[in-house]
């Protein structure tokens, strides 16, 4: 009988020394390439945005000014906030349709409850954010406990939240303190408060993505089983993820009211698909685990700039959707092809 011959020949040669490298050392170029490739999902939307901005700047004066930055940031900010929550959920490998209902509910509550007393307004602003968090946490609990798809659960809560908003305020209306609507307009150091808000958001992200929770969310989206085996609690991660998404939806609602000065029980649905689109353009995979907020923000700006671009191109009205669709497609196509060929050249 010849069962496995032990590894005797090796013993004296290796047992006392460290094993050699597993792979022969890759060339410096290969390391660079793979580093680039690891970041391709961010680099490519950046290049896309820069390309669009260059075209835009060639058609309109003053594109690279603070004014333009202030305007575009205000235009993109609600979407950015909504997409921040969506980004977190997508990184987890889920999806949150309920942000549509939460945004509506948030604007409606703000427009009907703020009154004129700043203290009351502030209290309700916090209240709305808390409601967002609770509603999101509830999503997380339902998804885990009922073992239902996030798509279905958040579809249902979307409807419930929209209905609640509609009961509170049946159609667009209400009012906000006049100081509130000045939020986006006021500037410091030439930058509008929207830009500052964006900066705060970035700081938050830089912090958040390096927290244990931030890592755990990405990890769970990347491989749920591994995350569980490593000690991530399935229900805890869902509560945190969807809770954050609800909080950001509430923040988006509050920001939106500074732009519209009113509440709307239907406005939230405008942000569901675009929030996913912004994230996907920014390099986030629906299958979870990959991407980050910076990509999403760039994605939101790309969507906004495309609108500006179509405006300055002065295409006749019927052609506008076609042109914006084509710009989007060409931009994404270019990046997809670039990424694909980069991947091929490496693998």
């Amino acid at each position, binding site marked *: *009988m*010849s*069962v*496995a*011959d*032990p*590894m005797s*020949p*090796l*013993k004296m*040669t*290796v*047992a006392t020394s*460290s*094993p*050699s*490298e*597993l*792979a*022969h050392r890759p*060339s410096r170029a*290969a*390391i660079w390439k*793979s580093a680039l490739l*690891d970041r391709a999902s961010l680099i490519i939307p950046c290049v896309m945005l820069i390309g669009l901005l260059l075209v835009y700047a060639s058609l309109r004066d003053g594109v690279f000014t603070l004014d333009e930055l202030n305007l575009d940031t205000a235009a993109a900010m609600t979407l950015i906030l909504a997409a921040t929550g969506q980004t977190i959920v997508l990184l987890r490998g889920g999806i949150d349709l309920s942000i549509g209902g939460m945004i509506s509910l948030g604007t409606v509550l703000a427009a009907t409850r703020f009154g004129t007393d700043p203290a009351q307004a502030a209290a309700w602003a916090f209240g709305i954010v808390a409601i967002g968090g609770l509603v999101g946490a509830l999503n997380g609990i339902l998804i885990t406990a009922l073992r239902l798809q996030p798509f279905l659960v958040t579809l249902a809560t979307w409807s419930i939240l929209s209905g609640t908003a509609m009961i509170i305020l049946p159609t667009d209306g209400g009012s906000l303190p006049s100081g509130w609507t000045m939020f986006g307009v006021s500037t410091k150091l030439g930058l509008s408060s929207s830009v500052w808000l964006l900066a705060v958001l970035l700081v938050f992200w830089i*912090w958040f993505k*390096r*927290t*244990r929770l931030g*890592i*755990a969310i*990405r*990890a769970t*989206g*990347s*491989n749920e*089983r*591994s*995350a*569980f*085996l*490593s*000690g*991530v*609690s399935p229900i805890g991660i869902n509560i945190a993820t969807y809770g954050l998404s609800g909080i950001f939806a509430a923040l988006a609602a509050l920001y939106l009211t500074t732009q519209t000065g009113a509440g709307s029980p239907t406005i939230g649905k405008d942000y569901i698909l675009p929030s996913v689109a912004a994230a996907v353009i920014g390099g986030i995979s629906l299958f979870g*685990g*990959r991407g980050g907020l910076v990509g999403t923000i760039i994605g939101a700006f790309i969507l906004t700039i495309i609108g500006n671009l179509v405006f300055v191109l002065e295409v006749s009205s019927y052609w506008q959707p076609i042109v914006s669709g084509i710009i989007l497609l060409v931009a994404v196509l270019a990046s997809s092809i670039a990424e694909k060929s980069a991947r*091929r050249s490496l*693998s």
Partner: protein
Amino acid sequence: MTELLNATAITKRYGGITALSRADFSARAGEVHALLGENGAGKSTFIQILAGAVRPDGGTVTLAGSPYRPRDPQEAQRSGIAPVFQELSLVPDLTVEENIWFRHEPLSAVRTVRARAMREATLELFARHRFPSIRPDQELRRLTLAERQVIEIAKALSRDPKVLILDEATSALGPQETEWLLGLARGLADAGSLVIYISHRLGEVREIADRITVFRNGATVAAYDTQAVDDETIITDMLGRRMDRLYPERKKTSTDTVALGLRGFGVDHRLSDIDLDLREGEVLGVAGMQGHGQRELFQALFGIGGSRGTVDVWGKPKTIRSPRQALTGRDGLALVPEDRRNHGLLLAKSVRENLTLSVIQRFTRFGITDPRREGALVDEMIATLKIKTGTPEQLAGTLSGGNQQKVIFGKMLLTEARILLLYDPTRGIDVGTKGEIFQLMRDLAAKGYAILFYSSDLAELVHVADRVAVLRNGRLAAILEGEQNSERQILRAAMLETRAA
């Protein structure tokens, strides 16, 4: 000496499948305790129970004298138990170091991960245990399977465990890394930890285990001191029957017909100038240290990733740019891939669907699949390879590791391709089945198949292959045959020049 870990009468059922029926296990601090058993015996299930990933239906565990019933993996970790899972518990989209320190990252005052500290801790950990050097900042998904396995080990060690569990941690490792891991495990035990060691390579077990526990069909059938027992007894206890021999008799069956001819074959900078003839009826071994081009050779031949040079298949030039172009029935090529979970198996689909995925045409008539014919193919393959599955409808992801490997092997056999590219086909497979697979390989060769065979276990190459091609730095270093085909010669060819360079 008192027992550190004591498990009695552990049971675990998955619906109608009994994974553990009555498992007893007891081990003490300071020893390496091997847990053996054939595929599907319940070893990994037992480990997962210890690790808090699965809750047992019955039985008790005590750890250092007090009852131990972890609610989740985190609790197990806190109790000082660190498992190296057979299926690995790594996250592809995190970096190497993020994986190692996942859930216990060093934190700053604002609760963020301290990147510098994590890097230092990683390098310190690597240095302390003399890990092979792997760049800590790479995303894990860029790593080869062997590298991932090493990182999984690092992850477990990062917790300074009282109990280290190694579930087939060597199955993807080459000889050098295996030797390193054995040394490491021994060292830990000598320093007072308990190491539970699962492997299908008896040689390794002999080398480091103090004691052995054997599972069969979910129950403990034997436990003994390693010194006091011979291989034959162990194997008989594992399989429930005697086994004559592991390696088949090697008869020369190769003809002069070249099944697969490579000229100037290469893959970017990782493989170059390969001239190689695989003949009809031949088992041609491929050896080399990890990362010297073996997986590139196999993958490129199967149409994954680009390649240069010419490939002749059964005497005719052939371009293979995708697995589809490789898998062309009897005159094509079939591959057992390296990474079974990511490349070989649809874990969420049934054994049946996995087995027949590449050969749907074989049971399709007028565009419609015939479940009876399919069933026949599936049943035959399950019987041939003794795949332990409740029914063919069991999800592949719920099979034991070795049985998953068998499904992949069966899936490849069903393609009827007569050129087989076997990349570590016996990884995680128990001795009994291994012997049968070797026999099968020889039988297929005798029937005119041509087999390219890589194994991380050199002994397999020595005993099963007719010739062994050794790769070094992506080039063909030697072709060993006859007397030359020995572990020592293979290692010499694979390593020497590297050392010199």
